[in-house]
């Protein structure tokens, strides 16, 4: 496995990439969709190495903490500040997103209520089981990598008839925002690096329309430095051959048809909905919600939460534009001075995979500005 980070391998791949880019009229611009890819690209200095060989990398909307709009966070915060004996369980990153109602981390819960950070959605079931007098709400946020785990947890709650358990869901599907970005044509893209673990669940098919209908090459890519370069190399070959497709460069983990059991449980428990994405606005069929027959376990229905899409954005925050690849973090006027990891203004700086946080962390020149 050491080949994945071997310097000679990286140099070899960069050479091959340079041979291809030399034949092109201009630097190809490639969007890495997934926040974990953004992290790898910056952490290993790949962004600068790639610029030197003529490839421009742009970050995309694949950070669930970043694209979940503030009004959903505010609903979660309200659950625990305005109701007694509520336990809100959540993944860690979500607790630090600032909203008009403060953050989950800083808000003061009502009597007997609290916020608990969990690593797995299943922990919420255990908490609900051992605290029958509390209402336990799991703040379930994620893309297709996480959604099957949440769907299985929901199914288990129903089988166990856990009456004090429900899910406040913010479930997002990757292909629709890519379609929105390509259709909007606000940014010219020559290729997509598709997220490796989302693809382990959904397979190759959901991305094929990007190649077939829009003629844009793409590669399903893993998370080591060599994986990223293999993905880019594949895209450049597709450009050279004039043959846009969806190539699987993470075949050791991703099967062409994805994970059938994961897809089946998603199909069983959830259905698609139109969703508001931070920055991208309302995208049809871009989210998932709990099916009507299971709505007793849907916190939005159980607690009659009125969540108004697009209502919560903090003024001046340009995270939405960063998520579409329209600006890079340093182009936001708040970057560093008014928005940094110690006091983030927007979620792109909160999440460990947010483009702004990653940029800040791995670019020392920017920090020396302070």
């Amino acid at each position, binding site marked *: *496995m050491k080949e994945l980070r*071997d310097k000679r391998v990286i140099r070899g791949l960069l050479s091959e990439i340079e041979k291809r880019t030399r034949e092109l009229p201009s630097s190809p611009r490639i969007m890495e969709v997934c926040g974990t890819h953004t992290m790898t690209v910056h952490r290993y200095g790949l962004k600068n190495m790639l610029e030197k060989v003529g490839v421009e990398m742009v970050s995309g909307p694949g950070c669930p903490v970043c694209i979940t709009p503030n009004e959903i966070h505010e609903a979660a915060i309200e659950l625990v500040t305005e109701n007694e004996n509520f336990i809100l369980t959540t993944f860690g990153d979500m607790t630090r997103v600032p909203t008009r109602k403060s953050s989950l981390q800083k808000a003061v819960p009502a009597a007997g209520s609290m916020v608990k950070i969990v690593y797995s*959605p299943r922990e919420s079931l255990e908490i609900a089981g051992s605290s029958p007098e509390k209402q336990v709400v799991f703040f379930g946020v994620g893309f297709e990598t996480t959604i099957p785990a949440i769907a299985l947890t929901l199914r288990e709650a129903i089988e166990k008839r856990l009456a004090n358990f429900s899910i406040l869901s913010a479930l997002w599907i990757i292909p629709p925002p890519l379609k929105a970005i390509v259709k909007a044509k606000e940014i010219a893209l020559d290729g997509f690096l598709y997220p490796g673990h989302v693809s*382990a669940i959904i397979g190759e098919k959901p991305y094929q329309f990007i190649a077939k209908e829009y003629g844009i090459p793409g590669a399903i890519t893993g998370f080591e430095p060599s994986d990223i370069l293999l993905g880019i190399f594949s895209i450049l070959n597709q450009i050279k051959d004039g043959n846009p497709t969806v190539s699987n460069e993470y075949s050791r983990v991703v099967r062409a048809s994805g994970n059938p059991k*994961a897809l089946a*449980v998603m199909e069983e428990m959830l259905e698609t909905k139109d969703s508001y994405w931070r920055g991208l606005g309302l995208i049809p069929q871009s989210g998932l919600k709990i099916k009507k027959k299971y709505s007793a376990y849907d916190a939005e229905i159980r607690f009659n939460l009125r969540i108004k899409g697009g209502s919560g954005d903090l003024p001046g925050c340009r995270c939405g534009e960063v998520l579409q690849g329209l600006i890079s973090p340093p182009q936001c006027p708040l970057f560093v001075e008014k928005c940094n990891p110690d006091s983030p203004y927007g979620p792109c700086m909160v999440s460990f995979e947010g483009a702004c946080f990653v940029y800040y962390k791995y670019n020392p020149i920017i920090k020396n500005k302070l």
Partner: protein
Amino acid sequence: MCLGIPAKVVQIDKSNFGKVDYLGTRVKTNFELLDNLKVGDWVIVHAGFAISKLDEEEARETFSVLREMAEQEALANKNKEREKQSNKQKG
């Protein structure tokens, strides 16, 4: 958040659960999303669930492609060096 870690299956219980070894720590994991898992298989774990099994054959192929890249690069560098040397001698 695509963070999924590769880990080795060390225990499979009857109830869809078991344990994986991740860098020496045994972590309780749910295996319901995968079929035909054996102790010794490597899986990708995300949020307490194994979501994919590592395919050894595909992994070997990928690593051999990467090794080829490294060798090609080493060869290209050797040739560059030789050229430099011979130019020096001529000069």
